[in-house]
């Protein structure tokens, strides 16, 4: 993918098909969003010329605005965009974490500028991958739960923001979050215990 405008006109039909369960369309949708977010991140990097701290939330908000500006039909509403894009963001973050881990310096861009000692506290890429796999599994069982984890854990949205997006109460989101954590914890820790 390069910096050329992705074909936003395709998005509505991709979205429709993906929601019908079309895996190919879902994959394409993912790619479009991924390249768009990646492009945005690089654009921010270029603007500042130095490693810069970007928050995933900001990136998503800006990507949406950007997209809506260029093609108002691209995504029917912000909430659905966020739901999809947060899943994509997860991939971006994990890829990024892997790169950063591999290269230490000189990854293409920095989502945040990390100090070595701060690194220790970050979740390790290996665990992120496991979380991601378990999340995909959870999405098959209850997509709304896995979405909460994408929005909250990976993209940094607050409960209130997620609640507002979905038109439900914060409590409901919090309970969903707890359920998802329990699911993931069981999945991950049991795996570890078995290994």
């Amino acid at each position, binding site marked *: 993918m390069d910096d050329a405008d992705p074909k936003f006109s395709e998005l509505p039909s991709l979205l429709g098909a993906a929601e019908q369960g079309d895996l190919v369309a879902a994959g394409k949708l993912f790619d479009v969003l991924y390249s768009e977010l990646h492009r945005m991140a690089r654009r*921010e990097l270029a*603007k*500042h010329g130095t*490693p*810069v*701290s*970007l*928050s*995933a*939330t*900001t990136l998503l*908000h*800006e990507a949406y*605005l950007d997209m809506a500006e260029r093609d108002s039909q691209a995504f029917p509403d912000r909430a659905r965009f966020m739901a999809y894009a947060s899943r994509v963001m997860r991939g971006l*973050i*994990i890829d990024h*974490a892997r790169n950063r881990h591999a290269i230490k310096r000189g990854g293409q861009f920095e*989502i*945040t*500028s*990390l*100090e070595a000692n*701060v690194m220790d*506290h*970050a*979740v390790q890429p290996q665990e*992120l991958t496991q*979380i991601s796999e378990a999340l995909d599994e959870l999405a*098959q*069982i*209850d997509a709304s739960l896995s979405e909460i*984890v994408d929005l*909250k*854990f*990976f993209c*940094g*949205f*607050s*409960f*209130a*923001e997620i609640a*507002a997006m979905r038109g439900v109460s*914060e*409590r409901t989101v*919090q*309970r*969903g979050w*707890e*359920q998802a*954590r*329990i*699911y*993931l*914890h*069981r*999945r991950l*820790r*049991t795996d570890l*215990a078995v290994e």
Partner: protein
Amino acid sequence: MSTILTPEQWRLVSPYLDQALDMSERERDAWLESLRATDATIADLVQNLLDEQRALNGERFLEQGPVPVAGLNTLSNRSIGAYQLIKVIGQGGMGSVWLAQRSDGRFERHAAVKFLNTALAAGSGAERFKREGSILGRLCHPNIADLLDAGVTADGQPYLVLEYIEGLPLSEYCDQHQLDIDSRIRLFLDVLKAVAHAHANLVVHRDIKPSNVLVTIDGHVKLLDFGIAKMLADESHPGEPTLLTAEGGGALTPQFAAPEQITGGSITTATDVYGLGVLLYLLLTGRHPAGPLSRSTAELVRSIVETEPSRPSSAIALSAADSNAENRSSTADKLRRKLRGDLDTIIGKALKKEPGERYASVQALADDLQRYLSSEPISARPDTFHYRAGKFVRRNRTAVSLTALAVLAILFGTAATLLQARSARRQRDAALRERDHANRIADFMTNMFKISDPSETVGRGVTAREILDKASTEIEQGLADDPMLQAQMMQTMGTAYLNLGFYERSHFLLERAISISKSAGGPENQVTLSCMNDFAGLLTQEGKYADAEKLQRETLEVQRRVLGPEHLDTLITMGDLSGTIALRGDRLHEAEKLGREVLEKERRVLGPENRHTLIAMDSLAAILGTEGKLSESEQLGAETIELERRVFGPDHLLVLNTMGNQADTLYLMGKYPEAQRILQQTLDIQLRVLGPDHPETARSIYNLACVAARQGKRDEVFSLLDRSIDHLSPRTVPKIEGDPAFKPLEGFPRFSALVERAKRRHPVQGAMCPL
């Protein structure tokens, strides 16, 4: 043992888990128990997953994002506006703080640059942030740290430039200097001045907490971070943002949040009044009103929204009492006495859950504290006022009233009912033996009746007390060969003594009743259980609330299991328990919930005009009053009085009790003339029915004294206290001294003499003065 759930298992358990996650621990336990009865597999699975949740909370699973928030150390030497960053001086939930210096050399002085851990939507968000910043920049007060600048860096990071303050957080400063309570209050008054100034400029702080209140080396109070929480609020959210929103759902513990900040209610100056209440509580007691803070955020949130904090004077006794006291140049005991009364009341009013019930302004809070310092009467009314303690009608199956005739009727009634039931049951096999028993009981009762024989009484009417005294001395031998009957008669007499206010005799008889029925019928026998509840009622009456609650919970658990959840005895214990919890005062929400449950069940099971249903109404009204839900309490009280008068007639004990409660509510509402009227009506009936020496009568007179005190009628107060003080129930006595109504009388020798007199009559024992 944890195994991976199959998708099917997960789908099955998920709705239950969702339900469980919405409950408090206690609710959850009960719920799980009942679920286990219908579906043990699901219940075990839910339990197992909840245990998992505990474990993952312990390891803070997923609590930190995959990438840490901006590592700002890279910012060193960068310039922010006209300021050059020097070094990080603080890092907290909201962001990091840098020491900075003006880079254009215009001022020498240092500044603090605070980066906020929040991304703002580009464009309007940043504009608004700057606009809000300029409003805050106009706040100019010696106790408020100046906001020099606010803006957003090129990469969207909002920041504030603040006056750099070198100092200690208020509570640390106070402890370090071992400031006593009055000095702490004086320092706190400076905080209030600052907040009042901001409020006058329409700025609400929204995040008052110890770390935002510094005291400089020369002892000046400086408030930081005014209105910042609001600057972070995102306009795109409908309604007011909650603190959790403002913090981006971050790791902040909402320790200092007001209930409305958690529930998303509107944020007003009353929000700051609450925050100030928390701060004052901490400052004076060394403890947080929500209790120990080692709990999970969810529990903390729940407690802020639902649980009434312990009174400051009780809180200081809970732990580290001595070091807390030493830091306040006092002893634990002195400190408790110092806080009891007005300071309890003032802080309680600031910490009301309902914003409308707090002080109407920061100034009003300051005024009351000022009054306290100069020993003038404060404006806030105590919400727990001594006669709360008598409000809950203990119930028992046999409605023991207080006239001699009624006592006799009941004793006979009990005996007769028992005999009938038994002869029906055992007619065939034990008819002979029963007849023998029947004769014995008849003899026993006749013997008791002899007391009203003119030859045995000297020219006056027999009293209930006399009948009871005679009966209770004879019952040990009289019915020794029928222990269950003996136990029940003892129970009846024990509760009659209790109602008459003779606690010692009551104690003796109820204890005997329990032990006899335990050995004859077993520990889960219905009679044993109901005796246990009556004994708990006595403990409540003696002020031993914790023991009472424990006993009632034990009893209730067995009754639910053995008799069923809607059995009258079970409901009676539940109702009594709700009263005990309310009397303890720290879990009023729980009391209310229980009270409502009892009322709902009794209305359904017994009907709306049943005696027990009416008692449940009376209790609920009293609980609501204790909670400070005064208008709801007043309404329910009025409704109850009307119904009770219709059902029982105007002189009935229950009517009197509800009237007393209603007077209490009116008192708390400040409707003194109405309170006085209803107390006077109650007293007139009590004098007629109970006589002048009965504790209930004394209570009404004492309460009239409180009303008179509030109306400034000093002579009337003395004469009313003089009339009542010798007959008050022991649990009222320790409260006389701390009753805020009598604050203006302190120092009057007449008052001290009255207090001494009461104390001599009922020396305070450890367990008798509940927290």
